[in-house]
């Protein structure tokens, strides 16, 4: 989110504050890919991503005049994004879910044959499930640090916590993540594969790495 030189950014922000919609469009074009990526990583549900990104920029549009420049704009934008996503997640928790609604794509097991791309996608889906199951505060710092690559000091500004707290949350997030990954067959098998085959197991590690039995015919036909 720091693609622009500071002077240009400040000029752009000033124009946005004055209600220049063209400037705000430019701001959107500059920052929306990063916001979209962060929203997708934090939300984990494709269905809500578009609405949430819109909501982030609506909040930015409304609150930009309150941004005093004490922190970097990117930090402030991260903070807005994190809070909007958290609100969206909470709203989704209280939202009724129809039994007939299709599962989220991110959580869907497509049962593909274990080629490399499919295996990688399954791994990442399983990894995302584990991240989703982390407690909120730990999940936020893990995503911001590990996936977004932000330093702890900046995360501390974003989440409004001391740097030490951020590091502590990060440490425990990794611990809990390791524990959660043991419950994911795909990831558990991946670890076993790396450690070598387990003779007591009936399945070969290779089969289990891909995490799934061969695809069912009807699935393939779909």
């Amino acid at each position, binding site marked *: 989110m720091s693609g622009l030189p500071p002077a240009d950014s400040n000029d752009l922000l000033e124009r946005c504050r004055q209600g220049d919609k063209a400037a705000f469009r430019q701001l959107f074009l500059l920052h929306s890919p990063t916001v979209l990526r962060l929203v997708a990583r934090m939300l984990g549900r494709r269905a809500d991503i578009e609405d949430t990104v*819109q909501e982030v920029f*609506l909040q930015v*549009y409304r609150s930009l005049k309150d941004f005093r420049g004490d922190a970097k704009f990117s930090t402030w934008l991260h903070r807005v994004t994190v*809070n909007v996503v958290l609100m969206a997640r909470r709203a989704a928790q209280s939202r009724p879910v129809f039994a007939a609604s299709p599962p989220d794509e991110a959580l869907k097991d497509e049962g593909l044959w274990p080629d490399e791309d499919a295996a990688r996608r399954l791994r990442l889906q399983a990894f995302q499930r584990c991240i989703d199951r982390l407690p909120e505060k730990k999940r936020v710092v893990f995503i911001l640090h590990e996936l977004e690559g932000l330093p702890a000091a900046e995360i501390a500004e974003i989440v409004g916590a001391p740097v030490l707290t951020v590091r502590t949350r990060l440490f425990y997030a990794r611990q809990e993540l390791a524990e959660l990954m043991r419950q994911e067959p795909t990831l558990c098998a991946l670890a076993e594969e790396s*450690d070598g085959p387990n003779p007591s197991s009936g399945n070969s590690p290779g089969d289990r790495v891909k995490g799934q039995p061969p695809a069912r015919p009807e699935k393939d036909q779909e």
Partner: protein
Amino acid sequence: MKPQELIDQLVREARQQRNPGVELAIIEAKLFERIARGELPRTPLKLTQGRSWWPIAVIAAAAAAVVLLWSRLRPSNQPPTNLPSTAMSPSPAVERIQKFRTDNEGRWLEVTGKASLWMEPNSEGTIQEGDRLTVLLEEGAVILDVLPQPAPDKVEVLAGNYRISVKGTRFRVARRTEQIEVDVEHGAVQVTSLDGTTTPQWLRGPAGGTYPASPIRTFQPFHRASSPVDSVVSLRTSATAESPLPLPPRTPSRNMGVPSSTDLLAQARDLVASCARSSTSVAPGVQVTIETSLTLSIAPGGHVEAFAFQPPLAPATEQCFRKGKTKLRGLVGHYSTPITLTLNGQ
């Protein structure tokens, strides 16, 4: 592969992952359409993370602390109680301000030149030694053997709303839930309510008095005959520690006709035992042990308003207790006591 290495590998893969198949152009179009329609959020986003309950918890804790302190320090001339809660060692010396707490055994404490203190088991309070020796009794009982003092009012015990100031005497002060008990072996003490709502009363030994724990406008000291020596056992404070002050046990008649909580619960336990024996048939050679906990609620009229056994007793036993509880009288409050009975078949 170690879990942390696996996490690192997955993180690397996740970082390389492309954005989900979401068309930013569509988002852009919808966004600016909403802006054009003025569909902005009504309230600015609160930039706080997560549900932060700690401010509420801090405020609640602070409020609780203020209420607690206020209730304890209502009379402004009481010594400070916010001292480190350290159990007193049996050291013969006293710091200027010291908190004491005894467990199952009582303890002696010597205050040089002023008094000897016997702290009964399960007592708690604060001793402040300066120009005046003040014992703030928060729970339990203390016995003071006060040396004759050159100046008046050099030793005092604060218990609830009362100050018991002494010249030179041996006396005992017990703070109970519902009342303050004062027994004077010899010498004299003056009992004054701290809020000034009652007239100061002198108790000259041997004498005793009970005073309600909550401030009221009158109180009635009682006088008793010289203490019989054979009642020492009742004042032993623990199996290993014997009270130095052989005062007689309290009887219901002394407490203005209302049994103390100890007496009430003793009567209740007796009633339970009686009911259990009458309603439980035990085969010869068999021993039955009953363990329960009795909770009593005494209404303002002094009668038992409600009771409960946890775990419950046999219906017949509880029915018997229900009939017999009309004889139980006590001071308003809730009381609880464990009960263990052993019934032998005959």
